[in-house]
């Protein structure tokens, strides 16, 4: 993860080769930019089209017949869909708060602790990252049923928190490992307590990573379908579960509208997470903080 973060500090490498030597084909294969361009079209075209057709005045998915907010109006007039939206926001908020607190503590412990327990906890923390969601979802469902916990919004929250802790830990730990422990030692030497040092010295240094992790957790929870699908009660169901049921009845412009709203929320959160360190005047890129999670 450090390798992904490292380039942020360096000045950008100039792509242009030395002017005296014209580039050989291998220096800059011509198909690469075209290929990369095609790749971006492939990635963004479906999303753009969904967003575009959510403003279509007719029900058609083949022809854009005029601009209208009809499908958004329908969404907000549907009381049960509104309840689902509120439920999703509640779940994401609780998940964000709980997972960020638990994950940050765990990150701190894993960086500082040298005990046997820390090694096992490290494995326990990494496994959820590589576990297919359906396995986690099935386990949660079996657990809730076994202990007789009625499926509801709370069970969805617990499942989301369990799955989100690791993401927070990985993101925060990357930042924590880069800190100089001697600064903490200095605070302790000056008579600060452990908690005081954590609160006054370490946490302020960690804020960008913690906030980025919190935003990421909110986005993941708000978007999550598989865990929610297995652990939700009857009503209200989280928004992605409603989208899934609706899709199975066929493609409708209302789903385009919900999808567009959801992707706007996610995109804003992620952009915020990327921009945040810069807004706070830090030098490191928030993207590195986020990308760290992929290469954990």
């Amino acid at each position, binding site marked *: *993860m*450090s*390798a992904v973060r490292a380039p942020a500090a360096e000045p*950008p*490498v*100039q*792509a242009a080769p030395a002017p005296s030597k014209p580039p050989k084909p*291998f220096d800059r294969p011509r*198909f690469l*930019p075209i290929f*990369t361009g095609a*790749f971006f079209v492939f990635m963004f075209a*479906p*999303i753009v089209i*969904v967003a575009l057709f959510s403003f279509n005045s007719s029900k058609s*998915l*083949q022809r854009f017949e005029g601009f209208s907010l009809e499908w958004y109006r329908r969404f907000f007039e549907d009381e049960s869909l509104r309840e689902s939206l509120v439920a999703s926001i509640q779940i994401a908020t609780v998940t964000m708060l709980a997972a960020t607190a*638990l*994950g940050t*503590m*765990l990150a*701190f*412990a*894993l960086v500082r*602790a040298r*005990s046997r*327990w*820390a090694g096992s*906890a490290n494995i326990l923390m*990494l*496994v*959820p990252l*590589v*576990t297919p*969601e359906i396995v986690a979802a*099935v*386990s949660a*469902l*079996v*657990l809730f049923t*076994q202990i007789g916990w009625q499926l509801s919004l709370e069970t969805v929250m*617990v499942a989301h*928190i*369990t799955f989100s*802790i690791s993401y927070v830990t990985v993101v925060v730990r990357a930042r924590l490992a880069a800190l100089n422990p001697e600064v903490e030692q200095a605070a302790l030497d000056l008579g600060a307590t452990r908690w005081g040092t954590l609160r006054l010295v370490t946490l302020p240094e960690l804020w960008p990573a913690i906030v980025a992790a919190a935003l990421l957790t909110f986005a993941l929870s708000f*978007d999550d379908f*598989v865990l929610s699908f297995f652990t939700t009660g009857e009503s209200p169901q989280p928004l*992605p579960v409603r989208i899934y049921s609706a899709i199975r009845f066929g*493609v409708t412009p209302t*789903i385009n509208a*919900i999808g567009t709203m*959801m992707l706007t929320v*996610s995109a804003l*959160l*992620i952009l915020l997470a990327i921009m945040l360190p810069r807004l706070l005047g830090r030098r490191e*890129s928030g993207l590195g903080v986020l*990308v760290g999670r*992929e*290469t*954990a």
Partner: protein
Amino acid sequence: MSEQRFATTLLLPGGLWLLLLFAVPLGLVLAASLGSTDDLGNTVYGWHPENYRQAFDPLFLPVLLRSVGFAFATVALCLLIGYPVAYYIARYGGRWKHMLIALVVLPFFVNYLVRTYAWVALLADEGLVNGAITNLGIRDTGITFLNTSFAVVGGLVYGYLAFMILPIYAAIDRMDQALVEAGKDLYGTPWNTFRHVTWPATFQGVLAGCVLVFLPSVGDFISAQLLGGPSTYMIGNLIQQQFLGADNWPFGAALTAILMAFLSIWMVLYLRSAARASREAAL
């Protein structure tokens, strides 16, 4: 309080949470996979290994094999698409590098369900692509895209491509550019330089990307559910059916255990390299 005791105190809340709500439930699934159902469909714990035998009988074996096949096809396609893109961004992205990688990550944060749905809207019989085909007179009738293996694998590739690109990008970015120069100075052809220098130097990233794509692909059920049909179902669809439809939880749990056992080889490989990386980062 000593530093070690303090660190262990902070370890407890998160560690216990993961232990009780992640590790213990996995054990429960294993226990349930050996159970049977009573007349009401409730799980009764016991010793019934025939759940596992059932998973490999001719009715279900093709589904297991299909899952593995689709996942390997997804990994191969993601590598073919992802490597050149990562290479281009890392080598020639210049000052746009970070911006381009952000663009790779961005669609990944759009709800997977919505992204898959977007392809349904595009490829449906009366969707946009078929509308264009018939309106432009390329063909009189549209093409059936959905319900095919191609659509399901395509959905998986679209869903998990970012997992392939990021580690490869990191590996190419980290690699010393001078190595390629050296290869050229030694009269290596572009292909030989790539094969003997760039590829080995970035192989760890390729491996990480392959594992990160493979794991979620094998367990996926949304792509096969929305873009495919019963003829393209994967193990995830079977598991989902057992738990949320057919109410045969022990069989569903056995399928889940088989999935986990199969994936654990890859997971251990990946976790070991991740643990090594985090140790190196901590030093």
